Structures are given as structure tokens and as C-alpha cells.
């Protein structure tokens, strides 16, 4: 029997069971729609990998599907299979986590840092206890919330939360993701909802046995770069031949023509050296912007004037954007677009773990 569309399947099942009402084992229409939309997002070349990672549909079931048909039809067939197995909202949520783990750059990640009391003992991290505690805190506060966990590489735990209220079901289309590295005080969150932050912070802090949680002034789409910055792993050179030759040698190799003479070789070498000191020899972590908020009272040598009497400070916002901000900054002085050394406000970004700055009068 070929897989029909989901409606036929549920009708067939209803007749089989001889019941008028939907049995509790049947898949909810909203879950079906959620699964359908999630699978639709997956690019065709990733479909098999993600479905296998999900491990909800068996090898046998997947073999009955024609993966060469048009995507809409393929998705319908897959949803049909999920119907057969009565996928729950938790199964669907797991698929959503896997999709997001592969496409993590589609979210913007904030970074939070927790700390313990100075005299608190370092407890051994118990994963089950963490999950249990986290769930309890959220479920006590909001009756309707979908919480899913998935372990990931390097001991990380990914948490997906779909938020509801006391009376409404959770909205599966606006979930919050949290990535936490146990034994470290860091958590990365992606959330468009500001209102849930205090509760989420509390759940994280208590479940991981910390005392306090603070939002860092660091934000990016590149989760791995954020991780490299907070764990101070960005200054490790990778094992490829490009990074083993020092910067100077590589640049001078290009200019082999002896008919071209650089008059300012000394200056050029000084710039290369300073750039290497500020940025190192390794690939920079990837950030998309740096933002500087300046607040200052007007200062002038002249006496009086309207601006000098102004009590409120003047405000100014400067934002640098780039597909790869730190590499772009690194190339400014060698390209002759800026003087070396660059302002420490620019070069301190990975070191301080900040890309949002507030500059005020002292």
C-alpha cells in the first residue's frame, strides 16, 4: 500500500480503531504542520543527514520514500510517515534543534556569564539533575512550555524552549535556544523575546548551581567564534602551511619584480609588525559588527554658547559592520587606509570579549 496523504491515513486509522473521536495516539494537526514546515526549511542536500540524525523515522521507512520527487511532495510523504509513528511535539522539537544546530548562523547569539559565590564549592556537574531542575523551574512559572534537550559536540548542551502562557499553548515558531557548556559559566542564547529573559536567566543559574547571571556585551551570528572568544581559544594557530610563514615573508613573496622598488620598506615592515602584535598570526574570530555608544558633555575652549550650557550629554553611535569585522580591521593598516597602530578600542575586541562599548566621560 502506498503512502497516501495524512488525511487519508488518519481516516483509515479511525475506521480501523472503530472510534469516532481522535485517539490520543494520533498526531496533532498542529504538530503535523510544525513538522511539515521544519522539514521544508531543510535544503535537499542535507535532508538525509538531518533525518538520520533525528533518528525518528527508521531506515526501512525512509527507504519507502522517493527522494527525487519535488520537495513539496517529498515533505508530504515524510509527514505521512511521521503520522504513522504518531510523532509528538517533543519529537518535532528535536528535529527543530537539529536543524538549528546545522544552521546556527541564522540566529543571533547573545552571551551570558554566570558566577558562583566566592566561597562556594565547585560541584560536579550532573546532567540529569541540571535538566530536571531547569525544566521544573520553567514549568512551575509557566504552565505551558515545551522544553527539549540535545547533547552536542564538546560536551555542550542545547536547550530549546517554546513559550506559552498559563492559558495559551506554546508557540513552536518562536523558540529560544540556549547552548551551555557545563563546568563553564557561559551560556549562549538566541531569543527575540525580551520578556522571558529574567525567567530564563533564573532557570539557568539555579539549575547549573550558580549564583548570578550577567549579560556580556558580546553578540554575533557566529556561535563558534563567540565560543572561541570567551574560552580564549582564538589565538591558536591552525595546522596549515599558510600560518607557519610569518606575515612579512608572505607579503614580500608577492613582489618578485625587481623593477618595483618600495621606498618605504622600513615603514611597511613596521606596520606589518605592529599589525601582527595587535592581531596575531592566526585567523580572527568572525564577528559582524562592533558598536560604540559615546556619551559626553560638550567641551569647548570658548566661554558660553548654547551647547556649553547644555546639561544633558551629547550622544553618538558609531557602528562598524563587515562580513568579517576583525579580518577587515586587521587589513586596514597594511592596506594604507589607516595608520598603525589602530585604536585600542578596535583591537581589544577579542581580548575583552566585547563588541558593544559604552564610552562615557570619566
Amino acid at each position, binding site marked *: 500500500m502506498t503512502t497516501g496523504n495524512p488525511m487519508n491515513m488518519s481516516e483509515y486509522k479511525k475506521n480501523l480503531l472503530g472510534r469516532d473521536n481522535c485517539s490520543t495516539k494520533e498526531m496533532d494537526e498542529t504538530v503535523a504542520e510544525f513538522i511539515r514546515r521544519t522539514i521544508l526549511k531543510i535544503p535537499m542536500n542535507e535532508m538525509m543527514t538531518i533525518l538520520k540524525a533525528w533518528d525518528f523515522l527508521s531506515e526501512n521507512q525512509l527507504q519507502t520514500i522517493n527522494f527525487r520527487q519535488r520537495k513539496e511532495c517529498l515533505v508530504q510523504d515524510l509527514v505521512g510517515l511521521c503520522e504513522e509513528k504518531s510523532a509528538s511535539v517533543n519529537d518535532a522539537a528535536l528535529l527543530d534543534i537539529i536543524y538549528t544546530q546545522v544552521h546556527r548562523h541564522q540566529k543571533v547569539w547573545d552571551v551570558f556569564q554566570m558566577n558562583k559565590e566566592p566561597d562556594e564549592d565547585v560541584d560536579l556537574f550532573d546532567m540529569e539533575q541540571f535538566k530536571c531542575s531547569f525544566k521544573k523551574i520553567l514549568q512551575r512559572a509557566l504552565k505551558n512550555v515545551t522544553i527539549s534537550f540535545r547533547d552536542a559536540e564538546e560536551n555542550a548542551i542545547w536547550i530549546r524552549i517554546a513559550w506559552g502562557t498559563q492559558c495559551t499553548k506554546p508557540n513552536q515558531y518562536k523558540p529560544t535556544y540556549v547552548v551551555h557548556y557545563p563546568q563553564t559559566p557561559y551560556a549562549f542564547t538566541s531569543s527575540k523575546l525580551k520578556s522571558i529573559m529574567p525567567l530564563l536567566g533564573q532557570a539557568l543559574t539555579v539549575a547549573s548551581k550558580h549564583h548570578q547571571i550577567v549579560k556580556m556585551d558580546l553578540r554575533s551570528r557566529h556561535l563558534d567564534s563567540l565560543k572561541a572568544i570567551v574560552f580564549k581559544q582564538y589565538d591558536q594557530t591552525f595546522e596549515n602551511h599558510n600560518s607557519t610563514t610569518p606575515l612579512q615573508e608572505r607579503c614580500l613573496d*608577492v*613582489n618578485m*619584480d625587481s*623593477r*618595483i*622598488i*618600495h*621606498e*618605504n620598506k*622600513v*615603514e*611597511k615592515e613596521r606596520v606589518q609588525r605592529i599589525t601582527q602584535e595587535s592581531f596575531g598570526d592566526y585567523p580572527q574570530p568572525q564577528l559582524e559588527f562592533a558598536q560604540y555608544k559615546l556619551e559626553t558633555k560638550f567641551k569647548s575652549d570658548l566661554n558660553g554658547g548654547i551647547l556649553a550650557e547644555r546639561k544633558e550629554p551629547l550622544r553618538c553611535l558609531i557602528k562598524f559592520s563587515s562580513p568579517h569585522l576583525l579580518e577587515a580591521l586587521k587589513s586596514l593598516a*597594511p*592596506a*594604507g*587606509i*589607516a595608520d598603525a597602530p589602530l585604536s585600542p578600542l578596535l583591537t581589544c575586541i577579542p581580548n575583552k570579549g566585547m563588541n558593544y562599548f559604552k564610552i562615557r566621560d570619566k
Partner: protein
Amino acid sequence: MSVLRPLDKLPGLNTATVLLVGSEDALLQQLADSMLKEDCASELRVHLAKALPLPSNVNRPRIDLIVFVINLHSKYSLQHVEESMHHVDASFFLGRVCFLGTGGGRLSNHHGAASGAHAADLCWPRTWCLSPESAVFAEDL
């Protein structure tokens, strides 16, 4: 104050030396490479400098042509050229200096006070805007 003078040295035999002055090294390098690809009646050498004055401890041939390269998007590069011009003797400007503006094709007008306004104000005698594949001024030498 060291100043470049056009006739303070004897010319090299069958050689031509062009000095490119500009703050953006990659642009100068690109221009130099293109120039050297062209056929030249004399043996061509190209010197690249970020600004003038040139380092004084170097033995260099007589400079036959100075090209000031200005990036029309960068006030910084214009500033460098303006400051460098003080170190060039007035007589050099009689046929041995030219100004090259780059980036003209991409001038956009939504970034506030662009240095494009300065470029339009340039009333210097030999202001040419050339595409990156500019012809060599070998004929002038």
C-alpha cells in the same frame, strides 16, 4: 627640508624612473604591475612611496615622472598627497607630475561628506581620471 628636483641628477642611460605616491599600497602595486606589462621604449623602473619626503639615505636614480594617486573615497589619501606636494620643487610640475584619481566609477552619494567634492574642486593643470588599466606615459618620457 628635502625636496625633489627634476634636474638635480644626470639621467640614466636608456632608463626611465616613475615614482608613484599614494597611501594605499595595494593600489600602487597594481598600477606598477600594469605599467611594467606595457612595452616601453626605455627600461622602466617604478618606485612606490606612501608619502614624501623619500628616505634620504638611499641612492636612487633621477625621477622622471611623479604620479600622485588619490583614492576618491578617502580623505586620508588626499591629505597624504597634499602634504607630500610640499616636498616637490615647483619646476617638477612643468610636465613631470600627474595626478591619478581612483575609485571614480563607484562614487556613491549616500555617505555624507564624501571626498568626491574635493576631487571635483581640483583645478590642478594635469588632473586625469583613469581606469585601472591605464596606459603608460612612456611617450612623455
